[in-house]
């Protein structure tokens, strides 16, 4: 497991014990899941070149 507090500190982020513990849990769960994924599986979000031009809400504010 990464030393979350040190990794965060290098990026200028301060983590407390609870945050580091949650990140440990997430990291462990993601490692297990990543081992299940087949190379053919694409992510649910994919770039779509046919997207219509979307206006910025409210235009220029």
């Amino acid at each position, binding site marked *: 497991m990464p030393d979350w507090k040190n990794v965060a500190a290098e990026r200028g*982020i301060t*983590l407390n014990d609870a945050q580091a513990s949650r990140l440990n849990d997430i990291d462990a769960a993601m490692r297990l*899941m990543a081992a299940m994924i087949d190379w053919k599986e694409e992510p649910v979000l994919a770039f779509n070149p046919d997207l219509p031009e979307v206006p910025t*809400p409210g235009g220029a504010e």
Partner: protein
Amino acid sequence: MNIQEAAQALRNRKLSSEELTRSCLQRIEALNGKLNAFMTVTTERALADAQRADAELAAGHDRGPLHGIPIAHKDLFCTKDIRTTAGAKIWTDYIPNFDAAVVERLHDAGAVLLGKTGMHEHAYGITSNNPHFGAIRNPWNPEHIPGGSSGGSAVAVSTGMAMLATGSDTGGSIRCPASYCGVVGLKPTFGLVSKYGAMPLGFSLDHVGPLTLTVRDAAIALEAMAGHDLRDPNSAKTEKTSYVPVADLSLKDVRILLPQNFFFEGVSGEVRQLVLSAAQVAEGRGATFVMGRVPDGAQLNTVAQVTLLSEAAAVHEPYIRKRRADYGLDVAANIDMGRMISATDFIQAQRMRRRILNVFLELFKKADCLFVPATPTAAPAIGATEVSIDGKMEETRSASTRLLRGINALGLPSLAVPCGVTAEGLPIACQLIGKPFSEAKLLQIGAALEDSLGLAPLQPKL
């Protein structure tokens, strides 16, 4: 009085929209100081809307069942010339120059705007204990949270301050306060209701939906709110659908899946009993039970968490860099964690979403919906960082969202329907989860359940 009854009274001239609106404004005046449901009350706008609605009805121009009905919007939906804060200090003075899509749609349906409801800061939390604008309080017991992030909307509807309120749900933020306040909350299929003009939290997880006193009122609201919108890149191209269930529904031919794993684990005995009793009521209306197992809920929740932490960090990164001191501690902590999630983990989570969704879609070939609790307990006390679930302690945030947040990652529709009150006098809800765009079926099942339970409207004694 619910929306259906009010709509009838307006058309029979037994009641005017102005009278109805003034009644809601009086409720706000009487209760808001104690419960803190509203951020902004737009009294002049409300009365002008109501008078216009009355004049139109008198002239024979009927915009439908929401014509003249007083409503409120969660304070993250942009409202032209009306302050929109997202419950955040950094947006305290933000006055948009446009309306969000749901604001436009409900206005066009003739609804009367009472104001904007309070929420958990940036919609990033479930307590609605807002460090900048004060705690929103549960009307069933003001020492308890209303749930969040759409806490003000749930309180407004529960107490009759508004007949309908909009909410957003990124990890349970409509269904959690619905359960804790005893109102109906609908998180529609991702893309069914436009997110245009809704301040984002998690781009691929945010859903917009209604909170109401009854299931049929939620259906009326959804009819007005749903529809394709080119301005929302995730908006689905759907046909206009009728969602309002008829009276005296039978549930013959409806198949209900009671999952054998995850959803009934770590749930208080009282909640389990109330939800299973409600399921038996559905069976009494003709529904058939199907047994089955759902994919690992803990894994699904991790996928949802990784997605939310990453997306929310991306949304807030430019703002928190400049104005960190203006963020609440809990929200800043979550954004910091999001900045620690690797791009690889984010992509893996998106691959798992597709895999898990495919398993759920298989389940929906043998059942019309999952019938599960919305929350494992009733509303926790304000300030409680942990809740006791039959003697076992669990973090409040985790307990309040673990039966809800995964469904956001799958984009499935989910309806929270009140199904009872605990011995402590706090309401709880069951949750009906269906396949994409099966809102009409969920509302039909929910309405039949509501008719049989005879609880609606479930309102606190104030």
